[in-house]
């Protein structure tokens, strides 16, 4: 009986551990919408462009109400021509406007990837500083549910490998607000990777987060849960899974530290390394394909900077090395699950058999 009520209380406590006296709840969708609204209100150079962002109110309703508020000159419905409108967005940024270009999902960004990389990311360097590109490319990234191989890829690793881009990926509503505002204000091209399945999730937000001046720094990770036994890095939806894994591990006497990367490029190597130097063990978690992924970079960084501190090999949990299948059971196998993270953490702690919970 006591154990059950403890089980109920613990999640609430762990939520409160992460967020200071939070009164209001806000979905990620509301967070993104309010961030867009506030930034468009504050700076007339900011405009939104993409498929269905205007009259349809946004394919995922992220831009709801913005057309009505700002008019068709600032909220533009585009034809289904990613290469064309991404290029137009970059050209507008060359001139000094601040476009927010929405890809319905980042799978479609591949049609426009030449503009993201060659026209946007590299221009400031090639022009020795004459042509800065203050553009944001945003939209859902990674797997949704049952959408199949062509609509499920995670692009974090591809974009984050490119110098000249900044790549952000929020988890909570606080992240969504703070990082999107930072991205829009930033003078460089930012790839902003959201997650469709997180849009409807609610998170507590403090008054500070709700303020229109709220902004999060780019390049800084957040320690979502402090711990001492093993470091788990994650971003976007996987942060939620990592936190759930940490709860399970706690019952087994393993105190996990969960790092929400927030920024894939620049990667907060110092926070990650400081954590590993404390815990001596590392699990990297991501949804995307494992080869040449975000976890590979984090592992290399830790091996380079903190080799002597590692007590176990670095573990990588990632999407399966296959195109995303449709069948529900196969799809479940193709994406990391909480038990995968738990198992990897135990391996890193040399625990093969789960011990009885320390009360």
């Amino acid at each position: 009986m006591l154990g059950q009520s403890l089980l109920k209380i613990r999640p609430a406590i762990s939520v409160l551990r992460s967020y200071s006296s939070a009164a209001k709840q806000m979905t990620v969708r509301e967070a993104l919408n309010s961030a867009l609204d506030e930034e468009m209100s504050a700076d007339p150079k900011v405009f939104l462009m993409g498929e269905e962002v205007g009259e349809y109110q946004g394919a995922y309703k992220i831009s709801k109400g913005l057309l009505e508020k700002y008019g068709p000159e600032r909220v533009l419905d585009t034809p289904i021509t990613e290469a064309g409108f991404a290029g137009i967005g970059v050209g507008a940024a060359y001139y000094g406007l601040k476009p927010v270009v929405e890809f319905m999902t980042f799978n479609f960004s591949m049609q426009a990837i030449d503009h993201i990389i060659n026209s946007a990311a590299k221009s400031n360097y090639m022009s020795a500083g004459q042509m800065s590109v203050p553009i944001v490319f945003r939209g859902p990234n990674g797997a949704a549910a049952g959408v199949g191989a062509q609509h499920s890829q995670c692009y974090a690793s591809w974009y984050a490998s490119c110098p000249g881009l900044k790549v952000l990926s929020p988890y909570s509503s606080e992240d969504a607000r703070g990082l999107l505002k930072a991205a829009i204000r930033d003078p460089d091209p930012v790839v902003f990777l959201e997650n469709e399945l997180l849009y409807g999730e609610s998170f507590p937000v403090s008054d500070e987060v709700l303020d229109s001046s709220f902004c999060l720094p780019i390049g800084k990770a957040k320690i979502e849960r402090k711990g001492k036994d093993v470091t788990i890095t994650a971003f976007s939806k996987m942060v939620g899974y990592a936190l759930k894994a940490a709860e399970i591990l706690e019952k087994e006497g393993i105190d996990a530290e969960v790092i929400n990367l927030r920024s894939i490029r620049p990667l907060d190597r110092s926070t990650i390394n400081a954590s590993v130097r404390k815990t001596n063990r590392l699990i990297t978690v991501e949804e995307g394909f494992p080869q040449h992924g975000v976890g590979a970079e984090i592992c290399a960084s830790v091996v380079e900077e903190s080799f002597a501190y590692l007590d176990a090999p670095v573990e990588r949990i990632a999407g399966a090395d296959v195109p995303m299948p449709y069948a529900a059971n196969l799809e479940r196998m193709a994406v990391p699950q909480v038990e995968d993270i738990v198992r990897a953490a135990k391996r890193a702690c040399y625990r093969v058999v789960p011990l009885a919970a320390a009360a």
Partner: protein
Amino acid sequence: MALSHLAASASRSSSLLKPLSSALSLRRPISGDNSPLTVETSVPFTSHQCEAPSRSVETNPKELLTFFRDMALMRRMEIAADSLYKAKLIRGFCHLYDGQEAVAVGMEAAITKKDCIITAYRDHCTFVSRGGTLLEVFAELMGRQAGCSKGKGGSMHFYKKDSNFYGGHGIVGAQVPLGCGLAFAQKYSKDETVTFALYGDGAANQGQLFEALNISALWDLPAILVCENNHYGMGTAEWRAAKSPAYYKRGDYVPGLKVDGMDALAVKQACKFAKEHALKNGPIILEMDTYRYHGHSMSDPGSTYRTRDEISGVRQERDPIERIRKLILSHDLATEKELKDVEKEVRKEVDDAIAQAKESPMPEPSELFTNVYAKGLGVESFGADRKEVRATLP
């Protein structure tokens, strides 16, 4: 004196030499003046979905002499770049514009520095017509600090944002949506200016061009798409690449004009017409019928897919500099000797700029890590051996 050169025949070269009105009968000083002069273009314009502008172009002696000087400078600059490349002082890619100078100077004469120009990689002369200096050109080509991109861009990446020249792009066709984006921003900002997005006959088949054109037409953007049709996309002749090489018609619902791109005055007239059109009615396509004497780039001799007769034929019949020279001489705006002196001056300017560029040092090693971002946030970046070379981005 000028009138004795007039001929009444209907041939192309005569109509060139036949002014409809002239304020001159005495030779003016070489600097010229602004007294109006009307000249007919070599050929009439051909139009698609619009009324072609008149063949009669308003000009003046000063403008014609400026055309001559500017084109002679560009010609000399490109030929000098050829030598520098062969001497291995220029590396990588080098795409030369000699033969096409009339497009750059004619366009500039019709617009202001508040209008935007964007082009692909054959950008040296366009950069100069937008106000770039010879030193910036040669230093950039040789990868030196005095280059317009401080040596970090190279031949294909010249920019001059303060006179609205947006490069300088290496990916064929990408510059067209970018140019439409510039036009979008001009309209958004209510600047009453236009963008000229230049592309070649090779790029004219790119899908993104049609995507951007569709959006430009839908949103009435002041975008002028200029196809510099030199008839060869690298080694592929236009008839082998395009089912319809009538590039001025390829806009379908977007009006177009076909222009003799070797006639600077025709180019000027077309660009003036296009600017007025774009500000009122949205996008328009200009097809400039032009020719490059060099191959696609310095690694292409340019003679495996074209005959030497064709190249020399164009040089004899249609060279843009010779056309202006004949015009100046026939109107008695300068003597042959004076024009030759201009060519000598220009040659000296080019030689001096090259000498100065050679003195410019290569970039400091620390420049490897500058300008990656406009706002570097103090993050770390790495060299090939990250334990050896690291930098903090400002």
